[in-house]
C-alpha cells in the first residue's frame, strides 16, 4: 500500500504528468474556444434566409453529430494526409475536436437565439435596425443567459473528451499515464495519477462555472434593487 502511494506521489509530481496535464488543458481550451466561434457562425448560418447557407450548416451539424468523434479524430490525423492536408497530432486533435464541438455549440446557441421572443426582433426592426444589428445588440445579449450554463458543461465535457486524442499519439494526460504504466508494468498508480489530474481540472472548471453563474444571478438581483427614495428640492421638482 505504501509503495502504491509512493509511486503515485512520484507520478503526480513528475514533469511528464505535469506536461501531460498542460497539453490536456491546452487542447481543451483551444478546441472549446474555436468550437464556440464555429458554433456561433453555424447557428447564425442556420438563421440565414439563404437556403444554400442554411442547408450547408444543417449538413455540418448532421454529419458531425451523427458520427463518432473518435472517427473524426482519426480521419483528420490519418485520412486527410492522403488528400495532401497534413497536421501534427496536436493540430489534428484541435481541428477534429473543434469541428465536433462546433456542431454541439451551434445547437446550444441556436436554442439561445430561439429563446428570444419574436417581439424583440419586430421592435428592433421597427426602430430601423439592420438584421445584423438586431442580432448583435438585441438578440445575442439576451440569448447569452440561456447559452452560458450549458457552455460550461461543454467545457467540462471537453476536458474528458480530449483524452481521445491519446489515440492519435497526442502526449496528453492519458497517453502519459498509459506509457508510464506499460513501461513500469504499474497500471493502477499511473492511471490513478491521471485521474487525480482530471479530477483537479474538472473541479476547478466546475468552481469557475458556478462562480460565473453566481455572478449572473447577482447581476440579476442588483437590477431588482429597491427603488431609490425621491427627494424634492426647493422648487418642488422631484429628483432621484
Amino acid at each position: 500500500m505504501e509503495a502504491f502511494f509512493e509511486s503515485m506521489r512520484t507520478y503526480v509530481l513528475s514533469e511528464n504528468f505535469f506536461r501531460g496535464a498542460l497539453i490536456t488543458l491546452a487542447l481543451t481550451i483551444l478546441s472549446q474556444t474555436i468550437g464556440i466561434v464555429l458554433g456561433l457562425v453555424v447557428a447564425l448560418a442556420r438563421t440565414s434566409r439563404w437556403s444554400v447557407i442554411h442547408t450547408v450548416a444543417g449538413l455540418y451539424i448532421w454529419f458531425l453529430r451523427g458520427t463518432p468523434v473518435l472517427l473524426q479524430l482519426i480521419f483528420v490525423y490519418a485520412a486527410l494526409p492522403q488528400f495532401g492536408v497534413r497536421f501534427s497530432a496536436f493540430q489534428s486533435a484541435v481541428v477534429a475536436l473543434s469541428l465536433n464541438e462546433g456542431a454541439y455549440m451551434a445547437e446550444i446557441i441556436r436554442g439561445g437565439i430561439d429563446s428570444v421572443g419574436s417581439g424583440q426582433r419586430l421592435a428592433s426592426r421597427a426602430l430601423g435596425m439592420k438584421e445584423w444589428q438586431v442580432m448583435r445588440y438585441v438578440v445575442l445579449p439576451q440569448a447569452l443567459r440561456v447559452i452560458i450554463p450549458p457552455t460550461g458543461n461543454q467545457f467540462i465535457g471537453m476536458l474528458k473528451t480530449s483524452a481521445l486524442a491519446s489515440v492519435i499519439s497526442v502526449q496528453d494526460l492519458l497517453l502519459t499515464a498509459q506509457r508510464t504504466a506499460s513501461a513500469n508494468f504499474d497500471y493502477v498508480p499511473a492511471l490513478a495519477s491521471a485521474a487525480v489530474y482530471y479530477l483537479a481540472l474538472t473541479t476547478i472548471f466546475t468552481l469557475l462555472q458556478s462562480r460565473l453563474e453566481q455572478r449572473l444571478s447577482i447581476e440579476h438581483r442588483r437590477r431588482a434593487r429597491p427603488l431609490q427614495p425621491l427627494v424634492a428640492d426647493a422648487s418642488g421638482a422631484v429628483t432621484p
Partner: protein
Amino acid sequence: MSGTTAEREVTLLAHEVRKTYHGHDVLDGVSLTVQAEETVVIIGPSGSGKSTLLRCIAGLEPVDGGQIFFLGTDLSTVGRNIHRYRAEIGMVFQSFNLFPHLTALENITLAPMKVRGMPEEEARARAVKFLEKVHLREKIDHYPEELSGGQQQRVAIARALAMDPKLMLFDEATSALDPETTKEVLDVMIELVEDGMTVIAVTHEMGFARRAADRVIFMDAGRILEEAPVDRLFTAAAHPRTRQFLEQIITY
C-alpha cells in the same frame, strides 16, 4: 388634432393594399390617406386586418398587392434600404417589446446611436427629454422588469419618439393594461396628438377616439367598411355592421 384648413402634406397614402396568408385575404384592398398632423383611429373586430395594416405601413410585412407611399416614398421601391424606411415611422406594440437587458435610458438611446450614429452624449440628453415627456424621468436607470405595464409602454413610446418619427403607429397600445395604467398611456398619446404628431392608432378606447381622432375607420374582414368623423360614426353609422360592432364595445 387638425382643423378643416386648406390642403396639407400627405404623410401616408395606401392604395388597394392586399395581404394574403395561406390563401386567406387578411387585407383585401385597403386604401387610406393620412395627412400631416392628422390622427386616425382604426377599430374593428379581431382578425379584421387592423394590426396587419399597421405592420404593412411600418414596412414590417411585405404587401402582396397595392401600393404604400410614405412622405412620397414608394415602399415597393426601397428594397434593401427598408431599414431606413422603418426608421422614419414609430411603432408601439400591444406587448411593449422593451429590451429587457437594457435600462429605460439604454432602450431609448440604442437606435439613435446605432441606426443614426448619434454621439452617446447627445443620445442621452435627448433620451432624458423624451422620458420627461412621458413623465418617467425618475425611472431612467430602471430595467423593464422593474416597471409597471403602463410605465413600460410609456418608455416604449419614448423609445419610438427618439427616432424623430414622422408618423406614429399604435397597435392596441393599451390592450394589455389595466384601466388605471391605460389612462397614463392614453394621456401621453393625447399629448402627442396635441403636439401635432401624425398618428394612426388601432384601439378600442372610444374615449381616446372622441378626444383625439379626426377620423375613425371601421375595418371588417380585411376591408375598410366605413370612415367618418368620430361623432358621426357614433350617431349615424352608415353600415349595419359598424353599428353592431359599436353597440358591442359600448355595452361592455
